[in-house]
């Protein structure tokens, strides 16, 4: 009797384990499209497709998928069929690195889109660079990713030649946020909180630099654990600091309860960066009204150049919204497609099997096109030349854009 139930248990567990393993790869098969191409180029994608940040990650995946399908439909590169291979990094650097290695191992992969998190990007840069595999992130804003660890002292040095991004840097984002809070919202006393991750801490640091330079005062600082959901002790400290606003370097899963618990004790606006600019921030935070977030670029809804993207995304019938990085992801994916097109043009319509990756990487500097978010091209660090930022405020339960602009 006992043995039999053990047997059943083992069978159930094994089946369960197999189902779980299978679900990691269930999305791979359906993303190809079109035919007639005699050469297949795979574009890898790495983003958190599960977990807290999956809302943003799925938007990234769908937008890349849309770019790939559009390129196949319009035969952007004659003779080449693009295929997307989407991998889930669960927002964890170690998983991101495994995915990078996996993509390097697939010969047909000529470019990688992603990841979402700057921390994950750090772990992917080196292996991809060693393999001369082009990587374009639509969302990483960590300044050191393109300008080296010493960018703060003005010593800018590009650490990895294979890394590009369509998002601008936290240096610009933090400065833009500080200017918005100080000059537009006229708030002089701010409590600064970050989640100690590369993205959050970097953003908070650049905010602080510009805000104090403008003459604002940081009345207190704290760090939180992004896995936590109880922040009442921090809220109590914010209240007694008499701050007029809170700036948070971090993402919405912890940002939403943090904002709500701070407003439980004192009613001041809560501001963050693009990691907070998500519809989920509002659905998880019953006191989000009046909160502010900055995000890269301009809202795609307001851009003439994005009309087609929005319409196509709707027609394609994706289950999840394109979220904050949809437009940037489409452009990131398209920049790889453009690079492949340049290489094909230089080699009689064929992608050389030997050094295809190196050729695509070399072509990235020549990429220049009108994308969803505006003109797309990369500077000598691999950063986007488009440094437009927008501040949004929660008004009537929705993010409403307030000011767009740039610093410097």
């Amino acid at each position, binding site marked *: 009797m*006992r043995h039999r*139930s*053990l047997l*059943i*248990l083992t069978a*159930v*567990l094994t089946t*369960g384990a197999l*189902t*779980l393993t299978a*679900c990691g790869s269930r999305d791979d098969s359906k993303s190809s499209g079109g035919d007639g191409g005699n050469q297949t180029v795979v574009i890898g994608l790495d983003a958190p497709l*599960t*977990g*807290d*940040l*999956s*809302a943003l990650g799925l938007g990234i995946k769908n937008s890349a998928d849309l770019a790939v399908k559009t390129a196949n439909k319009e035969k952007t590169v004659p003779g080449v069929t693009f295929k997307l291979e989407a991998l889930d990094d669960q927002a964890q650097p170690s998983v991101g690195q495994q995915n990078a290695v996996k993509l390097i191992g697939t010969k047909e992969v000529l470019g990688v889109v992603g990841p979402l998190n700057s921390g994950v990007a750090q772990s992917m840069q080196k292996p991809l660079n060693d393999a001369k595999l082009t990587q374009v992130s639509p969302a990483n804003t960590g300044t050191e990713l393109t300008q080296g660890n010493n960018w703060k002292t003005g010593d800018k040095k590009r650490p990895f030649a294979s890394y590009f991004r369509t998002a601008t840097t936290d240096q610009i984002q933090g400065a833009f946020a500080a200017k918005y809070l100080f000059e537009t919202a006229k708030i002089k006393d701010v409590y600064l*909180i970050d989640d*100690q991750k590369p993205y959050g801490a970097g953003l908070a640091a650049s905010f602080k630099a510009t805000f104090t330079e403008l003459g604002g005062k940081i009345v207190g*600082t*704290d*760090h*939180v*654990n992004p*896995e*936590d*959901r*109880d*922040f*009442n*002790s*921090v809220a*109590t*400290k914010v*209240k*007694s600091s008499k701050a007029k606003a809170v700036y948070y370097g971090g993402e919405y*899963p912890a940002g*939403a*309860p943090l904002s*709500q*618990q701070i407003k*439980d*004790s004192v009613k001041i606006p809560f501001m963050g960066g693009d990691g907070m600019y998500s519809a*989920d921030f509002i*659905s*998880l*935070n*019953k006191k989000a009204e009046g909160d502010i977030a900055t995000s890269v670029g301009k809202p795609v809804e307001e851009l003439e150049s994005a009309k087609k993207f929005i319409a196509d995304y709707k027609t394609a019938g994706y289950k999840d919204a394109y979220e904050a990085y949809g437009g940037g992801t489409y452009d990131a994916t398209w920049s790889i497609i453009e690079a492949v097109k340049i290489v094909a043009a230089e080699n009689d319509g064929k992608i050389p099997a030997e050094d295809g990756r190196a050729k695509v990487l070399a072509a990235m500097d020549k990429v220049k096109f009108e994308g969803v978010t505006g003109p797309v091209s990369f500077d000598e660090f691999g950063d986007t030349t488009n440094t437009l930022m927008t501040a949004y405020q929660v008004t009537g339960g929705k993010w409403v854009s307030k000011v767009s602009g740039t610093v410097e």
Partner: protein
Amino acid sequence: MNELPQQLANGLILGAMYGLIAIGYTMVYGIIQLINFAHGEIFMIGGFGALTVYLGLPSGFSLIAAIPLMIVGGVIAAVAISMAAERFAYRPLRGGPRLAPLITAIGLSLALQQAVWMWYPNATKDRSFPQFEGEAFDILGATIQRGDVFVLIVAPLCMLALGFFVSKTRAGRGMQATSQDPDTAKLMGINTDRIIVMAFAIGAAFAAVAAVAYGLKNGQIGFRMGFIMGLKAFTAAVLGGIGNIYGAMLGGIVLGVAEALATGYMSEVPGMELFGGGAWKDVWAFALLIIVLLVRPQGLLGERVADRA
């Protein structure tokens, strides 16, 4: 402004929640010496059970009236999963090496997380949980949120009920006997298998109540919420003396208050500026655990330890 009453209240509320979860660890450990690492997930499933009930109610149903139903829903879900886990994952391994059920518990914890992630609608990200509308209460210089009142009322009631059950009822005394000496208890005619199932069920029910409190307090639940809360509750159980139900609650409160005070004041201690704040509170909570265990290895209220753990 004097923060102390507020920080103590924050700690007390958090600690009461830890205590409710810790009951599950301590009862199961007290009887079969198993550290049930899947208990954090039982807590999480209780939260999803309660949310399911709430979503199934007609709109316009008042939250006060819904809460008893949500608790029932959460308790049913948590107890059912917990009893199934005991029957199919732990009982077949009873009598085997001590490590086997421990590893099973860790595996079960991952499997339950993934199961909720995969099969509960939209559970791949945090789901929002209903919360009370209206202003907070001011009591003795501390602001208490409406949602937090729930745990402050329910936790003592649960403890009283459990204390009565364990010391006064026949089944409760059977439980004490089994924990002291399972073999002799069996010879005396106690159905130890039933007692063990009961311990799992009571622990799961308390965890479900804690999950409702967690949802009301934070306004969201997610498939990973059981990991950190479970770890903290386990710490609370050890701190209070594992195997002792009152110790679990005391350990929870001590842990919660220690965390709140570390967040609030550690950065004001000279030379400690770098080690204060929300991110370091876990470090201080565990430092406290180590100190208590050095001085009192059996925990705050623990009695015996030599033949256990």
